[in-house]
């Protein structure tokens, strides 16, 4: 998995590439929590993610909780079918802010 971060005025965008599983989700969790500290809106680009497991989902939930605590926003975009399916299976598709494109995620 590769993670790249782009900082903008009112948001930080994190681009993720590769599989999110038990081996890679701790690194993702750490990066996202770190990035969240410095921005009011964390935008996560999942376009390059072809696989996510429950540990990845748990990491995203943890970041969402922290965002809510701090009155910040976590927005996901670019979800492909595989990622959508896992969010549906775990019944979390209604809990996250999900957008189609980066433009919509930043709007």
């Amino acid at each position, binding site marked *: 998995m590769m993670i790249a971060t782009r900082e903008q005025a009112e948001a930080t965008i994190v681009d993720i590439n590769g599989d999110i599983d038990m081996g890679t989700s701790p690194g993702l969790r750490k990066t996202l929590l770190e990035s969240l500290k410095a921005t009011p809106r964390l935008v996560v680009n999942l376009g390059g993610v072809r696989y996510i*497991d429950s540990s990845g*989902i*748990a990491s995203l939930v943890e970041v969402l909780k922290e965002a809510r605590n701090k009155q910040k926003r976590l927005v996901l975009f670019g979800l492909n079918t595989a990622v959508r399916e896992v969010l549906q299976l775990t019944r979390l598709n209604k809990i996250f802010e999900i957008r189609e494109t980066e433009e919509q995620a930043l709007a």
Partner: protein
Amino acid sequence: MNCHVNAHSGSQTAPPGGGPLTLRMRITSDPRLLCVVRSTVSELATVCGFEDEQRRRITLAVDEALSNVMRHAYKNRRDQEIELSCQVCSDCLEFSFIDRGEAADRSRICAQPLDEIATGGRGTHLIRQIMDEVCYDQVSEGNRLRLKKYLPCIKSKA
């Protein structure tokens, strides 16, 4: 023994062409191998005739089960051994995991409700949702988890 059979699943015999297939793996309990096993399972599910969505689900369930062995049974030690047998029978695709780590506490399997914003506890729910039969037990070699998925041609949605 702790077994679960999904109520909606029935089966009729419909042997696939070409006889049974077996693939037994023994792998190091290292998360770097998770993607390798996913790749194996995904292709095997395709050979069994599963379509894309079912193939992705089966791969997810196997990955969750393997991750649980690495994390819970072996407590993240990366130098242990896990056995994963895959068997294509006349009516199902069956996976059997064996480890020599700590046995699963049955009261924690599917113990957390799925719809809350919990930061864990989803793996065993996913496994049970996706697979038709889920069975945890002990055998002489160690802890065993068996997962069964009925083959697509014989799945009856009764």
